[in-house]
């Protein structure tokens, strides 16, 4: 069964279409990166999946309609909607007690184990913790919940690189077990690149590209073109061309490695480069889309 199945998902705020016919299918056991520029509809899409916003179209999460069956769905779904949404007055101990008291699939010992690796004191209030520690605490709570779907919306925004790296390492090493599904949105794509199994680009409320990382790696190639091959390379109509140290780097779609090898050094593009090529190509005048 697909973990998430969306067809023609639409959501309008006034005259603005936040979602304009999203089609997306995520199988169980995948880690999907949902990447898009600001205002592309990422959060609206996630909110729809979490039953936090109304929508038109078809949407099933773990076989349930998130809008009408939200209460039942929340036993199997967990999310970190944003950094620092933990109540500031709460003590770490109280957070553990509360989640243990209300969540049938919370393993308190596991959460305590995660916390033991941090500098977080049990008696501290959330407001006394640094932003990084609040995220660690939230992650410890969430990872101790045996959920089938975990949704992370910009979970590391505003954290320094050490916390960010630790966040994703912990998630991958201690949580992901190939039966759970994780959906994550972030602007720091390069940092989650290595943990993703699937990728979807969203822009103007539509999915403009999606597929598994293997499929994308077989479809897109980046070539550092030899200076004498530039014109020949351009004849293949690259999706995007950029200059690095005086060399042309071109990104090609639907060409094989064998076709491209004579042109120069072939490798798999990074998500950031792919993003710029796919989304930046459509809206060349929007600067810093992946910032």
């Amino acid at each position, binding site marked *: 069964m697909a973990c998430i199945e969306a067809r023609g998902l639409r959501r309008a705020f006034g005259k603005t279409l936040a979602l304009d016919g999203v089609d997306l299918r995520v199988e169980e056991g995948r880690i999907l990166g949902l990447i898009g520029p600001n205002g592309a509809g990422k959060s609206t899409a996630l*909110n729809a999946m*979490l039953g*936090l*916003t*109304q929508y038109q179209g078809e949407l099933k999460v*773990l076989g349930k309609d998130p809008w009408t069956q*939200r*209460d039942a769905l*929340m*036993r*199997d779904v*967990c*999310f*970190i*909607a*944003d950094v*620092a*949404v*933990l*109540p*500031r*007055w*709460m*003590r770490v101990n*109280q957070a553990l*007690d*509360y*989640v*243990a*008291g*209300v*969540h*049938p*699939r*919370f*393993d308190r010992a596991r959460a305590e184990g995660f916390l033991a690796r941090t500098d977080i004191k049990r008696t501290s209030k959330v407001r006394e913790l640094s932003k990084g520690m609040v995220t660690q605490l*939230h992650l410890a709570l*969430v990872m101790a919940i*045996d959920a*089938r779907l975990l949704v992370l919306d910009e979970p590391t925004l505003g954290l320094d690189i050490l916390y960010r790296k630790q966040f994703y390492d912990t998630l991958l090493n201690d949580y992901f077990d190939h*039966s759970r599904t994780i959906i994550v949105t972030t602007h720091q794509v390069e940092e989650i690149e290595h943990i993703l199994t699937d990728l979807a680009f969203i822009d103007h409320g539509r999915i403009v590209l999606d597929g598994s990382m293997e499929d994308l790696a077989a479809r897109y190639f980046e070539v550092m073109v030899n200076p004498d091959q530039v014109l020949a390379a351009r004849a293949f109509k690259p999706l995007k061309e950029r200059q690095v140290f005086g060399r042309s780097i071109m990104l090609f779609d639907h060409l094989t490695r064998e076709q491209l090898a004579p042109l120069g050094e072939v490798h798999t593009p990074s998500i950031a480069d792919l993003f710029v090529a796919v989304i930046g190509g459509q809206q060349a005048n929007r600067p810093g889309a992946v910032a």
Partner: protein
Amino acid sequence: MSSPSETVPTTPFGTPASAARTTSTRPFYWSVRRELWEHRSVYIAPLVAAGVVLFGVTISAIRLGHHLTDLPHFDPAQDGGALSLPFDFAAIPVMLTALIVAIFYCMGALHNERRDRSILFWKSLPVSDLNAVLAKAFVPMVVLPVVTFVIVCALHLFMLLIGTAAFLAHGLDPSPFWTGVPWLQVEITLIYSLVTLSLWYAPIYGWLLLVSAWAKRAPFLWAVFPPLALCLLEKIAFDTSNLWSLLTYRLHGGLSEAFDVSDAHVGHAMRSLPRIDLAQFLSTPGLWVGLVFAAGFAAAAVWMRRYREPT
């Protein structure tokens, strides 16, 4: 109010490991507890009020002692009623404090969680919006009256000890305190007042919770000014003040409906306990209409929390 107990799924979808880790939960209980963690004023404010009363009583006992020794004839049989008077009145500041706490609690209950965005945390857990709102209504309706009762009982006990000590210190017989004051009746009247007031004010709490769930900012203004504006409108347009009398009746009508304050007893009102009149209270349409409104407001608050976009 019963806890909507969450049934633990017996056949979880997950791996057997997840089945083993599934534990029973009590969402309502923990929702109420978390309210009390956040709002410690629920018990601290009435305690402070009781402390102030106790302090005043102590000073007055010292002063009263001097007067009593001057009295040539102190007849416990006749003056016992006067002795019980402070005990009745001691409850009032505590109850009033609890009422103020309840009002401010309700106005913030569903507003603060949206303002600090912690609603996104609460809503990430399997606690339904119905459960969350009922737990919040439970605080002013049940927790505060119970807290008030316990604190007032303790206050009475301390006052009794102080009074006894003051009498003994001046060589007077303290037994009127123990025999002259109808203790059981005092405490029953207290419980009865707390229960009837809780039911009577239910629509107010419901309204405040609804405004708290709805208002983007300044729930206090939204709670107070629209009703006042409607009163003013009615006065200007029709030169009547039905809404105004309805609202003021809601504010002060609870006790007058719950107790027999007919002429026959008014003379005694200051000397004896008010007479409980449960039949009159239960047959007051205002009670039932109020409860219907309370349920409607609460349902609207649940709907708001459930279907409104958390921003």
